């Protein structure tokens, strides 16, 4: 046991292990408190259906948070890219490729704007992205004039609908498969690609990274651009699930997404983080509402317990970090 605790793996994965234990305990509580719900498949199908929408963004946002930056504008990027996706789908009679390419390009453009504001103009990201948060949502309202767009006629029953959100073997929602694949891919990039490596160095110490020959501005810009891309992708998944665009689309995403990143153990100070932790964070944050209701508590407890989770988790991580120093 002692050997196990001192092993290299345990030492280097303290955060991941802590967060996994928290998740296991949480699901044990669900399981014991509401066995009639949690011993049956439908609740898990519901989780697999709903978690990927904010989960994909949370994974991508982990890169930006590791930089020591933040992006608050992604809910509105989801809104504007979904709108464009809906408009093009309906006006081209369901041309998926054009709609997909234009929507994701717009997402990347929105990310580029954030990146340029932060690096070239020098506005702190928390301020710059509050601006673009309002800007893109405002543009959604202006273009849509407050009305929604139904894409059911051009999307339902198509092959793209199938690969995005239909059920594999009639059981597993495709968006969850995508979510797992993207998480694996992003974990690989985060730890083992040059870009992920540079993200860590820039987030750790910008000046040092610069002196070591890393192009700090470019790394930041690319991080914001990929978040714009994945926000658009999450918007497209949501569109296929709902077959409808509504002008407030994306608005509820901000707190759950960022909560998943922070509960997952990525340091708000930058330089250190974990994609796996964010994934577990998504499982925790995404299950709280149903879990709490299933346990028989009233829905009024959801935010309260959510808040408690986040506060406790970040406190624990801060203490782990402090002991190290």
């Amino acid at each position, binding site marked *: 046991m002692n050997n196990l605790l001192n092993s290299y793996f345990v030492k280097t994965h303290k955060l991941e292990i802590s967060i996994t234990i928290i998740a296991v305990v949480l699901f044990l509580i669900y399981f014991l408190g509401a066995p009639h719900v949690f011993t049956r498949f439908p609740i898990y199908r519901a989780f697999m259906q709903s978690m990927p929408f904010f989960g994909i963004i949370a994974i991508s946002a982990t890169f930006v948070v590791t930089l020591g930056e933040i992006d608050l504008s992604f809910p509105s990027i989801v809104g504007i890219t979904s709108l464009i996706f809906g408009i093009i789908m309906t006006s081209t009679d369901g041309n998926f490729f054009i709609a997909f390419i234009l929507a994701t390009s717009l997402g990347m453009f929105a990310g580029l704007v954030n990146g340029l504001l932060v690096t070239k103009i020098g506005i702190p990201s928390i301020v710059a992205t509050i601006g673009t948060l309002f800007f893109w949502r405002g543009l959604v309202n202006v273009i849509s004039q407050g009305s929604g767009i139904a894409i059911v006629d051009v999307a339902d029953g198509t092959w793209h609908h199938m690969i995005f959100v239909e059920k594999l073997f009639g059981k597993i929602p495709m968006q969850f498969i995508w979510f797992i694949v993207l998480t694996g891919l992003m974990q690989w990039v985060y730890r*083992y*690609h*040059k870009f992920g490596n540079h993200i*860590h160095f820039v987030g750790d110490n910008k000046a040092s990274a610069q*002196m*070591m020959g*890393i192009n700090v501005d470019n790394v930041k810009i690319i991080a914001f651009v990929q978040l714009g891309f994945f926000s658009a992708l999450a918007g497209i998944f949501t569109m296929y699930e709902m077959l409808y665009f509504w002008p407030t689309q994306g608005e509820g995403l901000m707190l759950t997404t960022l909560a998943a990143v922070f509960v997952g153990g990525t340091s708000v100070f930058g330089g250190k983080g974990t994609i796996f932790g964010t994934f577990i964070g998504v499982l925790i944050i995404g299950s709280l509402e149903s879990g709490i209701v299933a346990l028989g508590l009233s829905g009024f407890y959801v935010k309260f317990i959510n808040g408690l989770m986040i506060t406790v988790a970040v406190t624990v991580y801060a203490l782990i970090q402090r002991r190290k120093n």
Partner: protein
Amino acid sequence: MVEELLKLQNIYKNFGNVKVLKDVNIKINKGEVVALIGDNGAGKSTLIKVITGVHSPNSGKVFFKEKEVQIKSVAQSRKMGIEAVYQERALCDQQELYRNIFAGREITNSFGFLDIKKQRKEAEKILRDYIGFTSKAITVDSQVMGLSGGEKQGVAFGRSLYFNSDLIVLDEPTMGLSIQETEKVLNFVKGLKNENKSAIFIDHNIIHVYGAADRFIILDRGEVVGEFNKEDISREELVQKMIQLHESGKIKVED
């Protein structure tokens, strides 16, 4: 036979309205250790950042190995054979040693994915052969955070040797080090000459500078105000010059 390695000609550098370097001319030969000395704000750090590609000069020419060059980035200066050792300031605390050693020039495949195995192996070699770390507590997977100032310095030196550079730029290499560690660093600097490598270094401590350098260049408010070979000046005289400069803002140059 003296071979020229680096020459800066009429270098000017402004930050906004502030003229940080004014018409700086210096030369460094192969196998020579040159010390840059001067008060805070004299422009020493800016000058070495021009050499390492962190800053570009506003005007002036740079020659490396007798060819005119424009050093636009750190990556480029490294490629030419200029390596900077900025003490712990150029290591990132929360990242592993092997990642720090290769930061900015990772060993990757053609898709940009890191060859972790090779990086760790080479880092191992650097720790053992170039730095002589024997402590079991420090491995290539250690975070930089746990290292002492001297150990961090060792990693930075090891990195510069491994990449086989011609000119090593040392920014305050002995700052914050214990006496023993300082000794090691100064020996390292002296050792460079045997390998026909050149070095330029900044240090506030004249005693350290005097022991390790062949030539001294004194900067004051962005200008070169004096240049002395070690054989022409004693340590006491050098200290006197600096005090004189500090008090009167001028150096008396005797013919």
